[in-house]
């Protein structure tokens, strides 16, 4: 199939970017979206132009590196799918495709489709852990965690930290990301001791890093390639209220 791409090009963080139009020809429907971009880049290099810079790594939907808004939807809008797992069979010959980076104040654009997601790191560093020491911990079976709790924690822990929740949120809030970690650790006995400090510190860090507030649009849940549910945000809210009393 042949496609028309409108790709966000921006030389550096301080530069003004704009959408550039490219034609790609002979795309196979078995190719992944990123392989289609690889093709585009090969053409650009051969034509003496600068290839499009984009983040990607594992190409199997788990590392969370890839980050593109495709036709107005983070990761392209296919259910539970990252850009790297999106295949060209979802598109038709002659389609026009708009490709933009994550946009949020907390995610400054570095080049083309690459953004700086360090703000997510800071949120995690502010409390996304249990303060256990290496060694000197109890036997794994000394703490019983019934299956429903373990499953709940696992549902939350599936977050890959890609930032699609932020990119899709009208407020650029990182609440889904933050809540996934808060909820995972709040439901587990190991995490309960620090639950109060954790929810306070992590939500505070989220705001300090320039993310917006959650106003319950739930766009994040739709965009999340791992299907993280907004019930974890509700859980975070509960945990926060508990921390106030």
């Amino acid at each position: 199939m042949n496609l028309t791409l409108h790709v966000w090009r921006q030389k550096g963080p301080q530069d003004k970017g704009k959408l550039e139009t490219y034609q790609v020809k002979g795309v196979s429907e078995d190719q992944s979206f990123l392989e289609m971009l690889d093709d585009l880049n090969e053409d650009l290099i051969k034509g003496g132009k600068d290839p499009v810079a984009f983040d990607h790594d594992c190409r199997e939907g788990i590392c969370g590196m890839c980050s593109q808004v495709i036709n107005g939807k983070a990761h392209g809008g296919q259910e539970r799918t990252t850009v790297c797992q999106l295949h060209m069979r979802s598109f038709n010959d002659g389609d026009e495709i708009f490709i933009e980076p994550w946009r949020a104040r907390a995610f400054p654009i570095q080049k083309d489709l690459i953004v700086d997601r360090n703000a997510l790191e800071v949120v995690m560093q502010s409390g996304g852990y249990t303060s256990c020491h290496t060694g000197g911990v109890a036997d794994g079976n000394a703490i019983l965690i019934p299956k429903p709790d373990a499953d709940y924690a696992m549902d939350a822990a599936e977050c890959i930290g890609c930032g699609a929740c932020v990119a899709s949120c009208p407020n650029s809030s990182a609440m889904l990301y933050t809540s996934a970690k808060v909820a995972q650790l709040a439901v587990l006995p190991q995490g309960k001791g620090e639950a109060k400090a954790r929810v306070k510190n992590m939500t505070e860090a989220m705001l300090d890093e320039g993310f917006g507030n959650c106003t319950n649009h739930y766009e994040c849940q739709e965009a999340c390639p791992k299907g993280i549910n907004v019930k974890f945000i509700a859980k975070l809210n509960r945990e926060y209220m508990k921390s106030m009393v």
Partner: protein
Amino acid sequence: MHLTTSTVGRKVLMAVTGLLLVGFIIVHLLGNLSIFAGTEAINIYAEKLHSLGPVVWIFRAVMLALFAVHITFGIQLSMENSTASPEAYAIKKRQITTFSAESMIYTGVILLVFVVYHLLHFTMHVVHTDATDAINTLVNGRPDVYSMVKLSFEKAFVSLVYIAAMFALFFHLGHGLSSFVQTLGFNNGPSQSKVIAVGKLVAVVFLIGYAMIPFVFLVGIK
């Protein structure tokens, strides 16, 4: 104070004040509906309210405080949120959020303006005095609220403003009602879609309940 500075604290404040305001509009609606129980009923209701004296003032003070909190934080949060997402996408597709949710700040401001207008109209009688003068007439020893309402809403402009405002309320509640459930942490996943549906249904009830009053006078059913 975490309650007034943190992201969740302020969200909770928005939800709780919003909920109390909803409590108020429930009572207000029930009172209003007495207009359908004959010309006397609403006059009796109004007299009863006024006889409460200081309680009314305490009530008004509380309402003012609730409004102040709800509006202040609503504006503050909206401003923060627009700062957080400064650059727009060339193309952005909404996937699940609604017009209701996206227009909260606008419907909120409309409601604020409306409330001021509404107070100037029916409480302070500063606007539409030709209609509100009816209150100075006593019917069976009570101020004639019924006629004041009737004369007001027979003016197309007034009715349409009130009905339009009720649409703003409808959209505001369409997101607000289910939102407070989420904000206060009552969402286990499967319940979410039901809560959203119930929220919208209740918003419709308010829309019909409130808008019916100007509507019936406007079209002359009453």
